[in-house]
């Protein structure tokens, strides 16, 4: 089970590295701008947008890109963005 998982990570190492970079940069900027809510919203929006873009590029390279897949990424990204936006709004 773990072997298959590690194989998949190794096979797409570059892709996941890019994903970790996007998300790491997003978290860092989000925390860095914790006294500037407008910048936090911009950080959250850019990070979620780049995440969707990452999904599209990844599936395009893997040749299994489909509108359903894009919608799945967009739905999760939307949920993530709305959660962050709500917390910023309430904070």
């Amino acid at each position, binding site marked *: 089970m773990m072997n298959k998982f590690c194989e998949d990570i190794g096979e797409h190492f570059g892709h996941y590295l890019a994903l970790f970079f996007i998300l790491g940069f997003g978290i860092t900027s989000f925390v860095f701008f914790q006294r500037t809510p407008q910048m936090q919203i911009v950080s959250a929006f850019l990070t979620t947008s780049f995440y969707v873009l990452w*999904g599209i590029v990844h599936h395009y390279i893997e040749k299994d890109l489909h509108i359903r897949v894009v919608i*799945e990424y967009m*739905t*999760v990204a939307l949920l993530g963005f709305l*959660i962050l936006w709500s917390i910023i709004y*309430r904070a």
Partner: protein
Amino acid sequence: MSFLLNLFFPHYGNNHKAKIIKTHGIFILTLSFVLFQVFLNFFVLARPSVLGYSSNISPEKIIELTNIERARTNVSPLRENRLLSEAARQKAADMFAFNYWAHVSPSGRTPWAFFTDLGYKYQYAGENLARDFSDPESVIKAWLNSPSHRENLFNQKYQEIGVAVVDGTLQGVETTLVVQLFGTPYGAIAPKSSTPKTAEKPVVVPIEQPEPLFNEILSKGQETVPVSSPLDITKATAFVILGILIGVFAVDVFVVSPKQIPRLSSRSFAQMVFLLAVLVASFFAKQGSIL
């Protein structure tokens, strides 16, 4: 049971993907979260005493926790002094009015000016500041973790304390300020050194003392303590939703991926990592800071 299995666990019956992480499942969760936020807004307006925007910090609790910590290290407890509490409230009001987050105001007004303006003649004095904390325990913990603030909390020379907790907008951000002032009345103990301490750097005590200006009982600052805050409820809801989704995506990664079942789907590992990032960001969205 079958419904729960379909909802949370991938198997033949749900086409090897838990329904909650399918597009429509996540969409329903998103919609529910939005509707809950709208409901929360209405509830806040309708019952402000139950859900308020103020933090759950009261000056009394800060004083109580300070004395509990002092008792643990066998340091005598501090007496609450109304003048110090009023000085703390005025300091917080000054910070909001002149929009600064510092011990000394932009015009050069030191913390000790707030003592003397109210006629508090001090021998020793100190100040701790905190902002953006939601509960008193976190404030005390943050001060305890900082050597200079800790020194103020456990200073044996201090005999009295005053605390104010005030909500307002500081540098464009809704903020809860906690101002904690320590003092020892002039002549209360044999003087060895007359150096008041902020958490950052000491300032020399002025020799001349003004006449007392204080005639009436002064308030201790705002003490609106709602039962719970919308931020805490939003965070709790977000953590539950994110926790469930991360868990189901993790099951998907470790149960379905090894079987190599062909399906048109997003990468569950990527979705899981993204939601984990949202969880971490939510946790660190607005942390308290001390000065």
